[in-house]
């Protein structure tokens, strides 16, 4: 009891203690190294994907345009603005940031009398903590970021080299869902896709396992999903937000996955029937992606469409230019079958200019579309390039597709560093393997390895298939012996390709000369359109631009009845051709319905 009375007095000992009071709490107390204080944003690193806005459970983040930050491919030009009347400093926005641009400083004092001043755009509104060293950063292991890309199952080099079997196997459902799960649905990709496909939406369809919805979405913007799901140049993936710290989402493979999951009959049902006939007739020259896309769109709108194709089958360059191991013919056939099911009539083996003239088309149809592609190979014009064993890649590829007999050489040289060069090198390698059991293909490219025009994956796979790829080699002459037999290709080392004005003017080092042995030389340095079908009168009448037919933004030529689309006016690319097809179809539909209205 006495103890209980006295014991509290021990508190007096604190009289002799140093005070614990902080002298100047306003300035002496910086936030800790991990402190979640006010935001910072590196404007150059930020791509405006809006993932921060999506994760914010407080609805605190707005994405807004900023002066001096234009929208460009892969960057929306928007930057986050945070409402500090909403923020709770949970840092989820920092954790999910796709580029690591958004961080937090260790500053925590912000006083205002006017509550409207708390709308804060980090990086844009200059603050003294913009360069703070300390503060919360996303963990280096990126716990909340999407994981790594799901590897695509492929045939190994040994398995695939002896045949033309499709090498990419396609995702199974579990793999596709895993890959689709990585997508943050920011939509940056849409702008970079020439056809502006609804990419985030169809990836969501994969996530939800709703493939029928996926097919509907694909067909809204692209009737060549089998083709594009396999061989698209996937510009979208180069704009993907995930690319900044890892591999982009495999958008192309997911597209293919959707179309693989739905049976052909069901696809036909999902797409529905064409509109009531309008009575208008449209002729399309060339059954490639551009021509058939135009045909599909117009037929869907109820116009009567006839396609004239010189070859025995449709698909254009996708059939006759792309090897079967990349795009099996039956996949292409399925795409074309959907298009013909829409009521498009395709006249195969009808070469315009020979079987029917352009004048005839002009009189018989309300509109004509020229979608003839680029089927003529360019020549290097080096000495000896007129030798019969010096071939053009496009011609050879076409021969392989049609099954014509090819005299496969035991050794050969390919000139060119683009995708076509890789295609022909790899196709010939397969034929060599089948015939001789060994591969002797040399590929010489002007560019160095870092600047190859071909897809890096193509280069990698070509090397796997034992193709001897030499970079920075400029072709000088085809070496022909006295008997007129082709021996090989002479090349010099390339010093530079362009001059100061960025014009093509390669410089060589003659001292570094090599002769590459080859019984055949294939030129794969580019293609051009064969416009002889136009006839002199029309050629004369049309306006031209650097050897290509001049068109307006809608694809219409200087002749009011004639449109042109695809590679022949826009350069080689499937998805561009599809986009072009849509554009031309819209333009034609517009013109045709306006005519109707006038009457």
């Amino acid at each position, binding site marked *: 009891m006495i103890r209980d009375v006295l014991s509290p007095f021990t508190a007096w000992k604190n009289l002799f203690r140093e005070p614990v009071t902080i002298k100047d709490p306003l300035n002496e107390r910086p936030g800790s190294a991990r402190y979640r204080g006010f935001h910072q944003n590196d404007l150059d690193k930020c791509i405006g994907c809006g993932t921060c806005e999506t994760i914010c459970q*407080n609805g605190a983040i707005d994405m807004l345009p900023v002066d001096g930050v234009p929208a460009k491919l892969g960057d929306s030009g928007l930057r986050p603005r945070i409402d500090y009347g*909403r923020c709770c400093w949970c840092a989820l926005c920092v954790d999910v940031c796709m580029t690591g641009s958004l961080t937090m400083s260790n500053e925590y004092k912000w006083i205002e009398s006017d509550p409207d001043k708390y709308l804060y755009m980090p990086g844009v509104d200059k603050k003294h903590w913009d360069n703070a060293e300390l503060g919360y950063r996303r963990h280096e292991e990126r716990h909340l970021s999407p994981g790594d890309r799901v590897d695509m199952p492929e045939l190994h080099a040994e398995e695939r080299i002896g045949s033309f079997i499709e090498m990419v196997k396609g995702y199974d459902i579990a793999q596709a869902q895993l890959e689709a799960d990585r997508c943050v649905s920011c939509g940056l990709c849409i702008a970079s896709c020439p056809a502006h496909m609804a990419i985030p939406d169809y990836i969501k369809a994969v996530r939800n396992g709703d493939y029928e919805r996926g097919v509907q979405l694909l067909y809204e913007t692209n009737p060549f999903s089998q083709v594009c799901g396999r061989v698209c140049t996937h510009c979208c993936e180069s704009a993907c937000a995930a690319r900044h710290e890892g591999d982009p989402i495999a958008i192309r493979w997911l597209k293919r996955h959707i179309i693989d999951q739905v049976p052909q009959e069901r696809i036909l049902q999902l797409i529905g029937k064409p509109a009531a006939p309008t009575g208008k007739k449209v002729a399309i020259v060339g059954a490639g992606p551009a021509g058939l896309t135009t045909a599909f769109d117009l037929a869907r709108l109820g116009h009567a469409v006839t396609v004239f194709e010189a070859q025995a089958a449709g698909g254009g360059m996708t059939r006759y230019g792309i090897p079967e191991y990349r795009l099996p013919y039956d996949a292409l056939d399925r795409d074309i079958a959907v298009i013909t099911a829409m009521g498009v009539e395709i006249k195969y083996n009808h070469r315009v200019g020979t079987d029917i003239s352009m004048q005839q088309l002009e009189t018989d149809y309300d509109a004509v579309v020229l979608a003839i592609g680029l089927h003529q190979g360019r020549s290097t014009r080096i000495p000896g390039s007129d030798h019969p064993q010096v071939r053009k890649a496009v011609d050879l590829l076409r021969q392989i597709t049609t099954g014509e007999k090819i005299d496969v050489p035991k050794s050969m040289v390919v000139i060119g560093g683009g995708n076509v060069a890789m295609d022909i090198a790899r196709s010939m390698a397969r034929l060599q393997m089948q015939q001789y059991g060994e591969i002797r293909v040399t590929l010489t490219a002007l560019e160095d390895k870092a600047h190859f025009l071909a897809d890096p994956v193509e280069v990698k796979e070509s090397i796997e298939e034992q193709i001897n790829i030499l970079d920075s080699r400029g072709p000088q002459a085809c070496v022909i012996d006295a008997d007129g037999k082709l021996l090989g290709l002479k090349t010099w080392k390339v010093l530079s390709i362009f001059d100061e004005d960025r014009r093509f003017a390669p410089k060589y080092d003659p001292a570094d000369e090599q002769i590459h042995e080859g019984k055949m030389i294939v030129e794969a340095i580019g293609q051009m359109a064969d416009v002889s079908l136009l006839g002199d009168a029309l050629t004369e009448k049309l306006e031209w631009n650097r050897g290509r037919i001049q068109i307006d933004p809608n694809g219409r030529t200087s002749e009011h009845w004639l449109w042109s689309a695809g590679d022949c006016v826009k350069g080689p690319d499937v998805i561009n051709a599809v986009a072009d097809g849509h554009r031309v179809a819209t333009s034609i539909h517009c013109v045709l319905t306006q005519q109707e209205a006038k009457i």
Partner: protein
Amino acid sequence: MKEELLKRIVKTPDGQEIEVDPLLDYYCQEGPTVQPPAYTAIIEKLFNWARSESLWILGFGTGCGAIEMRPLMTPRFDAYRYGIQWRPTPRQSNLFVISGYLSTKTLKRVIRSYEQMQGPKYVVGLGSCTINGGMYWDSYNTIKRLDDYLPVDVYIAGCMPRPEALLAGFEELKKIIRAGKAEGANLYAKNFEWYKANQKSVIHDWDMPDYNW
């Protein structure tokens, strides 16, 4: 309405029966009035200095931010040396710190407490919730903008703001008071109708007089 607020007959100790209408009888019916500066500029300045150096905070922890007030009023941060202290009743306080979100139920008590405080009086809004709803922006039970219901002098960002930030906010408030710009109480009197209309639009059972002085 609560039973004790209803009009009723009460028996006094000496046996009389009288009618009581609590809302009318227990409260003054006058509204607030604008108080113009009463003295010459130099004296008013002195007064403002004195006011700024004696911020007496009402000890009403309305929301989560109240938890950072404890460190502030204890030895480590020791706000007393800045002339800031806590009082248990509105009659002794001139600063109301709204510590975060206000549910409509608390808003009602906050209005009563605020109106009972002595003028000139000040309000500090603490954290995101007082500015634009904060993380309860979609809640059915919290107000989103404090300035709709009370005149606010200073806002402190954070969720929740640290004691140091609170202190910085109070220092800012002192500057405003010294500059003679902390006119919240007068603003409230001037726009009384507007404030009342806002208050009544969210407090559905208004069972108190309009002005709780």
